[in-house]
């Protein structure tokens, strides 16, 4: 039993095994993303009823909320990967971090951007200092910090260790940061925008949102897996199985 677990663990550390396993998942996630995003977009943009207060501008929600959720999930994913990488010295975790870091940055930027575009009609300004906005902004800085760190280290193995360490430390801090920022917000500002309390949305509004969220996550899975696979091919370029795989692709 223990031995079997150990073998599985070992397998997980093998890029080759991972590569073979994911070839199915990549296409599944790709198609799922396409489906969900299409359905969600059409439903949300064309069929969901307009908000009685905000009119049509609320439809930014279908991008904003999934982006904001994904931004946090990806960072936590990186932190977990960092922890595993540091403790068990698994190569794949750094591949994961390398693959999800740019996506995380882009998605966080998207959340910030869509939020401030939304803020223009609803708040009357591009930017307000509020708990959610600040913690997203700080999340963006955490991403940028790790990015800058990775850029600064040439050696692959050391880059992996350093970014794993900081992703981990950052993740430990995320709940603290989130909590404190929200606390600060309630103290300093009346919750004027109702970001925290769930609006009693009709289901025609939130169902498409759910589909969009699923679509964003599927897309993220697709992008991350694809990037990971490319990175594995790159890093394992001299290994025999890579050559065989490429030859196999050529043959088709």
């Amino acid at each position: 039993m223990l031995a079997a677990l150990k073998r599985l663990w070992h397998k997980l550390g093998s890029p080759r095994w991972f590569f073979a396993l994911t070839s199915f998942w990549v296409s599944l996630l790709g198609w799922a993303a396409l489906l969900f995003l299409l359905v969600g977009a059409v439903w949300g943009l064309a069929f969901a009823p307009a908000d009685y207060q905000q009119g049509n501008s609320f439809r930014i929600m279908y991008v904003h909320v999934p982006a904001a959720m994904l931004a946090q999930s990806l960072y936590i994913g990186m932190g977990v990967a960092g922890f595993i990488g540091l403790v068990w010295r698994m190569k794949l975790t750094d591949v994961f971090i390398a693959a999800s870091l740019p996506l995380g940055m882009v998605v966080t930027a998207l959340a910030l951007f869509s939020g401030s575009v939304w803020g223009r009609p609803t708040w009357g300004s591009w930017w307000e200092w509020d708990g959610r906005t600040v913690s997203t902004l700080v999340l963006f800085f955490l991403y940028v910090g790790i990015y800058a760190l990775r850029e600064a280290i040439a050696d692959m193995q050391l880059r992996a260790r350093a970014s794993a360490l900081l992703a981990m430390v950052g993740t430990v801090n995320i709940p603290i940061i989130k909590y404190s920022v929200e606390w600060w917000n309630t103290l300093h500002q009346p919750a004027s925008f109702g970001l925290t309390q769930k609006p009693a949305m009709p289901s025609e509004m939130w169902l498409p949102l759910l589909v969009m969220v699923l679509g964003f996550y599927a897309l993220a899975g697709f992008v991350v897996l694809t990037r990971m696979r490319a990175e594995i091919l790159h890093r394992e370029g001299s290994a025999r199985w890579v050559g065989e795989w490429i030859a196999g692709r050529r043959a088709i």
Partner: protein
Amino acid sequence: MFTLNQLCCERDGRDLFAPLTLGVAAGDYVELLGANGSGKSTLLRTLAGLHSQFSGSYETVPAVYQGHRLGLDDLLTPVENLLWFAGLEGATLSLDRILDALQETGILTEAYDNCAAMSAGQQRRVAMARWMLSQRKLWLLDEPLTALDIEAQAVASRIIKEHCASGGAVICATHQPLDLTDKTTLTLTPQLAETAS
């Protein structure tokens, strides 16, 4: 004192030298030779625990490590530096022993000067005193003769000889053979062919 088992250090994923297998016992002096860039410094750093990219394995005991950079604090005097090192090792040293060591390496007159105000060779002499004062048996020395004048080079050889005679072991990377009769040489050679499978 230490054993290497098919040890091969790596930099950026590149194997530096043909795998080494070696056992070093108390009393041995090993001279580590090899062309520039053959991996001598990297091997010593690996044994010191400062480099973790390698294949194969090794076993070793806590060691004194002397790299290209000396590790003296500019703002402290030699005596203070040596006291600090002793503290780090968990030992306590009497001032007398420290001054004796500084005398032996010929730097006693500067014992209470700041290390910043010393020439390259004078700082090296302080570092030599550090090896002598350590309780550790294994010394890992990377080009210890650098910047030493003729007289101090002889002192270095003598110190190393005495250390080996008293049951220590020394591995010393150098391009300038030391004046010792009883030595093992270990030459690093590039890995002949990449193990392309």
